[in-house]
């Protein structure tokens, strides 16, 4: 479809501080795409879903954009083309986005049986913003099927005008610190296995009763995120021990945090920062309780507004650096892709992102069977994503290896710790692919 909106009327946005690196990292092996899926009680009607999407889009102008190449930076521009099409689901989600496909939109809506899934490119939003968009879309769809769904919690009012604060670059607005966080991490252990062919991704999701995992976390006096992160470190630590070529490298986990918990902002764009935690097996044998304790104490020590401000200031400093600013965008992309290939995932063995509890109006809960979040492929590391809905924690492990060793270790460890897990995976559905 040809452009209908004149150039002058097309609103444009600078990429936020975190999003600036994503266009340079948009490759098949590192797509920076994540997926949210909701399974409803009824089969999805694609026509109604398309209509729901068209009704939802005006409330979220930050999603109604396409990626453009500026001379110095990439930027987001209001999409002059039609609506993004809803598509039948695929077995290998979270694939890289090409700027010209999907009518230029940076998210894709899929449907399959009772399930609606949306793949988001990280440059437009983080897990918080995505959950607001996704739950609003689901609520609008349910309303179109004749259900009474009120507005509230993660469901935004589509009749309301978009708030100005929802499209702000919260990093630049909130950065006040003069200090820059200096963080040096060692290169860590990475699980090695036979890689899946390009564009394939192994996603295994475990559904866990929140009460069961909360009780276990309470035994150690930690939060659910800390507990799950500790399990990840524990299994990677044990996998390294079993490795024939064990070099006793440090084992680490990266934990993105929602900065909205510290700096007030209603932005629906990216507003998160990452902490890294490492243990060094050269220091001696670790037990699981030791890892939980160290991780929890480390996060409690470091996770505060001042530290986050210093991290934000450090990141903003790179963006404001005069040398960085004058480099053409293609050189920046090349530099980012090279730097991230060399160092990006070297300093962590895995990643766990927890979006937290997604709340929806009570009337909506009865129509939703399950909700889950899964991340895209990591070049070296398995990535874990979590969210809680109603009384269930959905934990997804995504990786690019044929053998489900990491997933198996992760979920069976939880079972051994007395936490019941129900699993589902796309593994057997992508196994028949062209290998």
């Amino acid at each position, binding site marked *: 479809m040809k452009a209908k909106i004149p150039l002058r009327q097309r609103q444009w946005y600078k990429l936020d501080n975190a999003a600036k690196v994503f266009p340079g990292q948009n490759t098949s092996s590192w797509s920076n795409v994540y997926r949210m899926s909701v399974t409803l009680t009824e089969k999805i009607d694609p026509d109604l879903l398309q209509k729901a999407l068209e009704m939802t889009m005006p409330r979220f102008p930050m999603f109604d954009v396409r990626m453009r190449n500026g001379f110095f930076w990439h930027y987001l521009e209001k999409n002059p083309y039609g609506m993004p099409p809803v598509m039948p689901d695929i077995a*290998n989600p979270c694939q890289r986005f090409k700027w010209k496909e999907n009518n230029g939109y940076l998210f894709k809506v899929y449907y399959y049986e009772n399930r609606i899934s949306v793949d988001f490119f990280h440059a437009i939003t983080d897990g918080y913003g995505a959950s607001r968009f996704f739950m609003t879309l689901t609520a609008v769809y349910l309303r179109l099927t004749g259900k009474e769904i009120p507005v509230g919690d993660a469901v935004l009012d589509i009749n309301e005008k978009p708030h100005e604060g929802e499209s702000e670059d919260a990093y630049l607005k909130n950065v006040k610190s003069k200090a820059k966080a200096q963080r040096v991490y060692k290169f860590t252990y990475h699980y090695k296995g036979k890689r899946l062919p390009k564009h394939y991704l192994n996603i295994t999701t475990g559904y866990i009763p929140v009460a069961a995992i909360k009780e276990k976390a309470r035994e150690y006096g930690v939060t659910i995120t800390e507990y799950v992160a500790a399990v990840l470190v524990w299994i990677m630590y044990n996998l390294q021990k079993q490795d024939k070529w064990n070099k006793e490298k440090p084992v680490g986990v990266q934990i993105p945090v929602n900065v909205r918990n510290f700096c007030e902002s209603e932005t629906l764009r990216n507003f998160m920062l990452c902490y890294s935690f490492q243990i060094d097996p050269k220091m001696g044998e670790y037990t699981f309780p030791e890892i939980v304790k160290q991780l929890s104490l480390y996060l409690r020590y470091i996770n505060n507004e001042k530290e986050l401000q210093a991290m934000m200031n450090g990141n903003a400093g790179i963006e404001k650096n005069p040398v960085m600013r004058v480099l053409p965008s293609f050189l920046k992309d090349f530099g980012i892709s090279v730097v991230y290939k060399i160092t990006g995932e070297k300093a962590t063995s895995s990643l766990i992102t927890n979006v937290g509890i997604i709340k929806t109006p009570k009337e909506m809960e009865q129509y939703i069977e399950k909700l889950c979040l899964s991340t895209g492929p990591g070049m070296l590391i398995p990535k874990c994503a979590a969210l809680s809905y109603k009384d269930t924690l959905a934990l997804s492990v995504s990786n690019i290896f044929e053998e*489900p060793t990491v997933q198996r270790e992760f979920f*069976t460890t939880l079972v051994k710790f007395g936490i019941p*897990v129900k699993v589902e995976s796309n593994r057997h559905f992508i196994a028949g692919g062209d290998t």
Partner: protein
Amino acid sequence: MSYCVNCGVELEKGCPACPLCDTPVINPREKTAEPEKPLFPEILEIPKSVSKKYWAFVLSLIIIIPNLVLLALDILIFKSGISKYIIGGFAVAWIWFIFPMLWKKNIPVVMLGIDALALLAYLNMFRLYGVENGWFSSIVLPVVIALWALCNLFIFWLRKPRDKSMTAVAVLGAINLLSFVIEICMNMYYYGKLQVVVSFIVTACCVSLMIFFTVMAKSRRFKDWAKRKFFM
């Protein structure tokens, strides 16, 4: 509902095997149940990517055009005949780096053979158009064959993951062997006798390093001692 007897996790209804360990699910009670819709569709989205053949074509064009210009200039203006050596060099580079892109799956041994033949053909061109006093058959041919054979041995040996120290030992051994071949060929060509001197010096260096790396690989005690003594 079914549970995996191996992993202990609960499985989705109708799941034929555990996705974590592939243990088949045999639940007599679920047999009578209606077959569930699979969790994921069979559709796979594989984006179209620019093929290696396309890049091979583009790179070939980039190489061919200046070479054709050079050939024309040499024939019409310079008339020196130097272009055949430059074009030959580019042809060897094409066979080494672009030719493998035309194949879906590369077999290293075959590719190495083709590379060695291309190099021999290029050097043979110097013999044909230059001075012929036996240098090709006395030096070039045995050295290239020795290098090709050593590379093949390495390909065969590196099929399994090897320890870095042992790889260093193998590389040093190969360097030592190659030095013997080169020195013998050179001496036979220039002096007509089997005289080996320099290679023994190379051997002394290589063997001492090989012993060091072997002990490093085999003895943890020595490794710890070396780390303590030579830390920087």
